[in-house]
């Protein structure tokens, strides 16, 4: 247990140290940590506070302001459905419905089994391929409900194979 925690702290410190930009801020450190660890654990708030010589309260103030920072570990896989204007016109609603149905969610969030974190995305930048869905940061264009369901199923199958 202690080693897990120490390990987490080491990874957080690595993330903070890995920033090569000339100005390191509270925000840039938080971003670096979220990139490496996947979320902002309590330890990250403490480490960033120590590194930027401010209090945990101030760091938490920054972290809690941005919806993109999460304070709990994400699911094993990330699924994002684009609902930007183009995707919307090209049928993102159906895709959303089938994805939410499959995952058993009402809106953004994590599945109960912790397998998948689902989020809306306002534009994945591939409007020509609309509607677009991203699974583990890989884009799939011209999505259809059945293709999407297959994709999601494969996520679960991978697990059982392993």
């Amino acid at each position: 247990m202690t080693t897990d925690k120490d390990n987490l702290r080491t990874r957080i410190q690595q993330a903070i140290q890995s920033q090569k930009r000339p100005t390191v801020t509270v925000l840039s450190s938080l971003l670096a940590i979220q990139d490496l660890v996947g979320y902002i654990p309590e330890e990250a708030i403490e480490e960033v506070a120590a590194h930027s010589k401010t209090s945990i309260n101030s760091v938490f103030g920054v972290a809690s302001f941005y919806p993109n920072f999460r304070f709990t570990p994400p699911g094993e896989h990330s699924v994002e459905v684009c609902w930007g204007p183009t995707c919307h016109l090209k049928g993102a609603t159906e895709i959303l419905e089938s994805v939410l149905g499959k995952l058993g969610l009402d809106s953004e969030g994590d599945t109960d089994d912790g397998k998948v974190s689902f989020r809306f995305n306002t534009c994945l930048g591939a409007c020509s391929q609309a509607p677009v869905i991203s699974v583990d940061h890989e884009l799939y264009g011209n999505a259809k409900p059945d293709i999407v369901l297959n994709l999601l199923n494969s996520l679960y199958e991978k697990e059982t194979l392993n």
Partner: protein
Amino acid sequence: MSDKVNLTIDGVEIQAEPGSMIIQAAMDNEMYIPYLCYYPGMKPYGACRMCVVKAEAPTPDGSYRALPGSPASCTTPVSEGMRVETNTGDLVGLRKGIMELLISEHPHGCLNCHRVELCGPTDVCLRHVSVNDRCVTCPKNERCELKDTVRYMEMELTTPLTYNNRHLPMEVKDPYWDMDMNLCIVCSRCVRACDEVRGDRAITLIDKSGRSIIGTAAGTSLLESGCEFCGACIDVCPTGAIVERDYKWDKAVQKISTTCPHCPVGCQLDLDVNKRNKVVRSIPNRKAEANMGMACFKGKFGLDFVNNKNRLKKPMVRKNSILEEVTWPEALDFVAGKLEHHQDGDYALIASARGTNEDNFAAQKFARRVMKSNNVNVSSNSRPKLVNSLQNLIGTDCASNKIWELLDSQVILLVSANITEEQNVVSVPIKQAVAKGANLIVIDQRETELTRYATKWIRPLINSESVLIGGILRSIIDQSLEDHDFATEKCEGYDKFRNSLWDFDLVKVSAQTGISQEEIREMAQIFANAGASSILYGLETISDSHINDTVESLVNLSLITGNLGKKSGGIYPLFSGANQQGSRDVGCVPNLLPGHRPTASQGIDLMEISEACSSGAIKALHLIGDELFHNTPNRSEFLDKIKATDLLIVHESFASEVTEIADVVLPSALFSEKTGTYTNMEGRIHRLRPAIGPIGDEDEDWRILSQIAARLGSDDLSYSSSDDVLTEITNEVETYKTLQINSLDSRGHIRNPILNSSYVFSPIEFTQSKETLVNDQYPMVFAPGRVLFDADRDAGIVTENDLNTITRREVIEMNEEDAKEAGISEGDVIKILGEEFELTGNAHLNGLHSGMVATTALFGTLIESLNSSSEPDPMAKTAGLRLCKVRVEKV
């Protein structure tokens, strides 16, 4: 030419400081622009937009150019020739719109109720407004800036927007303060006060826009968020969102400005007094130059003792070994009858550290003139050596500079002082200076709040501080960093002093102090290379026999770098006792007469008095207040010894161990019932004004003494008021001559400085530590620390009986070699056993000096114990962090 900026506001020509904001310029000229987020003394923020104005500035061709839009006057600086309109129809409309938005999230039922004119503040509302939305149920009702602003703007009393109650739970589990975020208007004054002014950042704005609210990281308790319970957030809150818990709903019928009795800073506090003669609130005065609107946990939450019902109300005399209530004349006759037989040197008087200058002047005069004894002292004078030599060397016996000059110090050297708990408000300018880039060097074995702000935190071996300072002095000479002109032209004895430094070879110093030569050299560079370096010393961890040496070394350090007499430089002794300085000035110490004149034959000091009591040399002891040796092992020893006296007279306000053994108990008035003056650590004289009337038959100490004196046939103390005494003080004490009694306001009056023609260097000696703190039974020295916040370890907050409680496991720091010898390895559960306490925790082995153990507790634990204490005045008896001898055992 005037260096002020000329501008017109609503057609009135005014002058303003360059760089100031329009709103401040208006305020300084007694004009009002509505505002909610602005607060004088804090940086411009521009959150609420209430203070919008129209402004135009002249252009070179003589025409006027309007500033775009409606700028907020709190973020728009004044400029020459500017024309500002604050009340045009547009602006009024804009403000009303903003206010409507604001109160759409703030309960305001009473504001737009049609019965509001008919309804008194305490009337019960039958049905017009639901309970949650009433102003009359808000603790800040009629003290609310939001309500005042709404009234000023003469709003239509309707709500066009849907009112949204946030339905957030109240935070009432932390000591002393309550938070109701349903009332918050998110002006973030509290967050800025905590950050900009106090430097704590214990609270912050959390969550996203639209849902943003005040809170702490992850919603934790204030006990672990780094809060110092100073109440600054409460003082600035414009609504009832953050309030004091005690007497929350009580209304003030009177506001009295007086001086805090807790420490020598002498904070000016405005006390709210309710109709039942109780002090319900204390709000620090913003105009006061000693505290600049700041207070601390003691001044803010530690004054409730004045309302305590268990007061001693009648004089008592011991008859047949039982204390019986008697009338004043009977008690005084009894005392006088007894004291008659003690006028030949077997009498001693210890005055109260909370006694006013008048009380303590009368006390010393009573002892010296009436009782013919020089054995007179004040209870806070337990370490007179802290300041005794200062006067000879630099000419003053208190801080050479003002507290708030520390703001501009570039280097601050702090030697063994836990300012956060002992003289809290002094830490505010220090933290602000550090935030501006000043270097703070802390020399202390204990980890305290300010070690967290330190550029360098040095933990020397016990009692080696004077040698360490000697090493710094030597290093300054070695690196040619001294201010030679200052040292030779303005000071005496430089050459002799310089020669005495040859003993301080850095190799030797390093061995003696446990601090590397490199560190010593660096400290010398930091201290000597700055423009203005100040020194603060409390010497709380240093044994009595080393204090003189250390003080002399510190004075030398200030002189050799030319920092005495310089703005933001200087030297600040940190003692305790609200009126310790005044007591010295008026001669209530055994070695000085009023006005710092030396006595012909010196009286004995506090410890010697108790010795003399037990040996029979002193047969009559007169104790004013019971403040001696609290929280030290000396206390029980002291009580044992004074039992041996024939006559023990005690002036007290509450029953205590001392009144239990007294022969006569005379009820004495508290600071809140007195007229008089205190002198603070800067030599600033402050007024005390009676806030509440008498509770019983208690009286002021000077009057009690004057009545006893009259019965002993002396007319030396025939005063009719405390101002009479003060008049005599101003005649007797040279430095008080310029004091104008009637014009004494919250800014106070700095007593005349006592000037030496030149400062004096004192040669220093390389001393081996003479005193040992330890013995065979307790071979280690324990350095207890306390900090506001500890990121490394979870405070483990649990809620018990609806109160947040810290359940943290302490970590005990230990030297690696010591641990190996005792068979202790990292993380083992070990126990520290002292004479009067024990403490269990996990061992953490680090580079701590051999023979020492240390812990760092959370300030929250202190606050918790104060909050739950059953003592009438727990803040006055706060356990200081003292070194003590212990032994360590493995569990």
